[in-house]
């Protein structure tokens, strides 16, 4: 591991100032992903700013919704009564990820910044990875690409975003609050992560030096009518091959007033399935209509040698997750 200097800050102002805008300085929250990447030699910060003790570990009601501080642990968010009772899909998604030990360490802000588990990114002994070394190529395209993207990928990168939490946040239209050298701003979750395009080395739209301070969950009366489905190679403690966060509002006839569907494991960012949502609007959420909606979303899927199975898996997962959400309505 490259030697680094360690600085612990206790106020947001100090942390932002200490961080500056240099590319080789990083904040460390839970550190579960960052330290692992440092051991691998993928991340090589010269300096770490420890933000674990910043006063950002509260969960509170705000404007009818809930604000979750960036330093709240994944465990505390998933266990919190406000989240469990009002946004259960978020608790379910968080609890579907990682292990209890990791969730105890991992923070909400850090989970937003998880990096892909693409094998070719994570192991620098592979020479080709545009995300790790821009311009070096993509080993995954010709390699073992079973876990890779089927939607929104580019010639430069077919990696997927690994987070479960972010999939639920996408369905809930969460808003990320940040503080940087030039002040505060809000970033809607759909604009927070990026598709790879020709700059796959840039995961998010955070600007240099910006610190995530909170995640806001807007008021959503029907958020309890939801479900999170995760499909993976083993039943626990594995990344998603496909996951679905589904939230649904039905009218008095039982027709869909609004569906919110987000997919994990299929793209470089949590994938909001707007085509499927539109196809369901005003319709009965029966199996035929759900399949038609899923087909509409997956129409543009592009597969590689080992991941074609994800297309049908995603369709079936949408149908099942939506059916579960409807049954909770």
């Amino acid at each position: 591991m490259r030697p680094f200097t360690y600085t612990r800050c206790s106020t947001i102002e100090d942390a932002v100032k200490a961080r500056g805008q240099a590319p080789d300085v990083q904040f460390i929250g839970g550190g579960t992903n960052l330290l692992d990447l440092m051991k691998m030699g993928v991340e090589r910060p010269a300096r770490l700013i420890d933000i674990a003790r910043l006063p950002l570990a509260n969960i509170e009601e705000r404007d009818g919704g809930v604000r979750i501080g960036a330093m709240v642990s994944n465990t505390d968010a998933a266990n919190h009564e406000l989240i469990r009772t009002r946004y259960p899909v978020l608790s379910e998604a968080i609890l579907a990820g990682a292990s209890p030990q990791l969730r105890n360490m991992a923070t909400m802000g850090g989970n937003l910044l998880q990096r892909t588990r693409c094998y070719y990114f994570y192991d620098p002994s592979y020479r080709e990875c545009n995300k790790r070394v821009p311009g070096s190529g993509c080993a995954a395209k010709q390699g073992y690409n079973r876990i890779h993207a089927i939607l929104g990928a580019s010639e430069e990168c077919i990696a997927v975003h690994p987070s479960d939490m972010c999939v639920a946040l996408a369905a809930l239209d969460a808003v990320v609050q940040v503080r940087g050298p030039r002040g505060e701003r809000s970033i809607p979750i759909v604009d927070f992560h990026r598709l790879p395009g020709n700059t796959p080395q840039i995961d998010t739209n955070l600007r240099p030096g910006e610190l995530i301070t909170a995640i806001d969950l807007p008021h959503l009366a029907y958020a309890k009518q939801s479900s999170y489905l995760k499909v993976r190679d083993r039943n626990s403690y594995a990344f998603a091959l496909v996951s679905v966060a589904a939230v649904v509002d039905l009218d008095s006839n039982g027709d869909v007033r609004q569906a919110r569907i987000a997919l994990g494991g299929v793209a470089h960012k949590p994938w909001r399935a707007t085509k499927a949502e539109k196809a369901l609007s005003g319709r009965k959420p029966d199996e035929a209509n759900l399949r038609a909606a899923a087909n509409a979303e997956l129409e543009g899927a592009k597969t590689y040698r080992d991941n074609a199975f994800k297309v049908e898996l995603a369709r079936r997962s949408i149908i099942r997750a939506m059916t579960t959400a409807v049954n909770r309505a």
Partner: protein
Amino acid sequence: MEPDEKGSDLSVSRREFVGVALVGGAAAVLPAGAQPVEAPGDSVSCTLTINGQEHQVRLDPRVTLLDLLRERLRMTGTKKGCDHGQCGACTVLVNGRRINSCLSLAVRHEGDRITTIEGLASGGNLHPMQAAFIERDGFQCGYCTPGQICSAVAMLEEVKAGAPSAVTPNIARIEPIQLSDDEIRERMSGNICRCGAYVGIVAAVRSLGHGRNA
């Protein structure tokens, strides 16, 4: 190892390094028998409470809690399995919560209360979870066992506190957890056993979990 970056004045290790260098200069005129100067890499001072005992150490900030325990403090009960947070062999309790000590920098635990497998027994008596693992054959080779036991101890506290898991039937309902075998398996999934002693592990946890679901 690569040369250190030039840190700014704000950085702890840089500042500490300067401090060490000054002490070094002073040490040259100290009488024989004075404390030797620390290596420049061991640049951050840190006080950790481990199993009730305070330890003052100077650390390279790269040292993980796991390596501090094993390599510096010779507390080798905590095991290094994968060193990447994937196996759970390094599980310890920090302020009562289980974590992977391999994925946590030791310097970040200033002031924390750390419990390792060595700290579970008291006065020559095994912790009930240690006794249960023996009673129920919760291990074969034993390498994952310290992590399994630490994890299980914290897990029962989580259940007692009403924390849900991915298999808890209705997360939106705040109610006591019924500790089924499915719950035990899900909650212990962060601890891998390559011998496959899971049947005994689940039995050991169940034997203590019974009646603890309120």
